[in-house]
């Protein structure tokens, strides 16, 4: 039960949606593709705290995104990365 759906190294896409409640995905990350850097623990779902207790908890992953893919005219190296925590229900497998 509650086994991680995604594994380290897997390419994932972050959902591009804006629910009308508190959520923990910044606009710049929505719709972006990255790689699972780390599988983290289970935590209360932010969208479900507006009413109730955030249950059932959701898995968090750290997603690594290449900075030059994230921003137009990014100034830095091809190796620069941004890493961000994303809940499982915001992720889908990407090619």
């Amino acid at each position, binding site marked *: 039960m509650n086994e991680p759906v995604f594994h380290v190294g897997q390419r994932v896409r972050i959902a591009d949606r804006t629910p009308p409640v508190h959520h*923990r*995905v*910044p606009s*710049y*990350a929505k719709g972006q593709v990255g790689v699972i850097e780390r599988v*983290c*623990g289970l*935590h209360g779902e*932010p969208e479900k705290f507006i009413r109730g207790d955030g249950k059932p908890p959701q898995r*968090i992953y*750290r997603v690594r995104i290449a*900075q030059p893919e994230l*921003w137009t005219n990014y*100034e*830095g*190296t091809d*190796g*620069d*990365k*941004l*890493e*961000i*925590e*994303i*809940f499982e229900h915001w992720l889908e497998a990407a090619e």
Partner: protein
Amino acid sequence: MTDHDHGHDHSRTFQPDHAEPTSDGARIGLALRELLIEAGHYTAGEEQSVIEAMQGASPENGGRIVAKAWTDPGYKERLLANGAEAIKELGYALEPYEFTVMENTADTHNVIVCTLCSCYPRALLGMSPAWYKSSSYRARVVREPRAVLAEFGVELGDDVDVRVHDSTAELRYMVLPQRPAGTDGWSEAQLAKLVTRNSLVGTERDLKIA
């Protein structure tokens, strides 16, 4: 000032009261706090002890953790693998958060931000600096980390990759800075004093030997 004379000067001894809340948000916050205490969710005493624990936290705790990692390779491995468990060995705790420590190396520099608000391992490192909470830092360090770091005095060449960590949910972060050269044989206590708050956030890279 005063129309009576009794041996002291009111203009010098007067201390203003703690300001009354003036914004709606502050009033709602106070009312909520009183309701939560009245309904028995926690006591005023518990609240006070949490505030005191946070006021007692400081970057010195981070320095102690870093010095331990510099001098004990086994500890460093445990710290990088599971920070929350490893800091318990030194008597610290950051529940309910996961604690993630990112190691700076010769070719990687880490910097921490919370773009959505101002998440910071407060119970461990104390209050975050004002710039960490500024919208300017939060917006810019993800978009142009090298320019922001340069403003902090950290000039990175092309041989160093930047990793920006956006603390968006239930993880809290600390950077493990590099141990400065010329510190062979130093004690943990001596090493801990070299560690600065900014180096734990990643806006400082090369620690100075005083």
